[in-house]
């Protein structure tokens, strides 16, 4: 194996590592964005908006980072499935929370 091959392989591994780090910290940033929004928003319906970045972008990005670190295989598919489940579950619970908030507000008006 020549030196150029070694450099090419090392460069590719470095690029993969950088990609994993970018995905990981982007996901963490989205979760922290949700946390800050949840702390700042006072209205109940605004708080529902605060849940979206963490569930729909934060956890899937972290799952993508973990899957990229694991490499191609069944473990990566399982990790991506976990991220997808969090995204779908967050959406469903946000809809249920919105419905419950609307019913609670309607009762307060009555």
């Amino acid at each position, binding site marked *: 194996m020549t030196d150029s091959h070694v450099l090419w392989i090392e460069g590719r591994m470095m690029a993969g590592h950088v990609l994993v780090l970018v995905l990981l910290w982007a996901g963490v940033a989205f979760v922290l964005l949700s*946390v800050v929004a949840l*702390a700042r928003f006072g209205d109940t319906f605004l*708080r529902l908006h605060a849940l979206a970045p963490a569930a729909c972008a934060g956890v899937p990005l972290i799952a993508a980072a973990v899957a990229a670190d694991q490499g191609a295989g069944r473990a990566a598919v399982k990790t991506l499935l976990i991220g997808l489940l969090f995204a779908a579950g967050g959406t469903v*619970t946000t809809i249920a929370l919105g419905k419950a908030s609307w019913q*609670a507000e309607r009762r307060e008006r009555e």
Partner: protein
Amino acid sequence: MNAWAAAALVLLAAAMPVCLWVAARGSAVRRLAGVCLLSTAVGAVFLVLPQAYQRSSYQDLALMLAVLSPAGTLVFTRFVVGHSYEHDSTGAHRHGSGSGSGSGV
């Protein structure tokens, strides 16, 4: 400490206290938003920690949480709404909304 452990530490130190604070204050419906985000943050931690400790089998916790946390939040939501309907003491209103069949536990 590698990047995975640092990310888990950031999530544990920054997200958990705020979510617990939101889940501990306000009306029952307003607290549910904190509970929902708390489960998402814990799921992110459960995804990151197996990479930090190089134990891939720990990832099953994240899978279980991804399945059970939406179900738990939905149950909480139903109990909160059902509890409020119990205190309404108006049967017609309870049947009219279509979501108050729970006993409120």
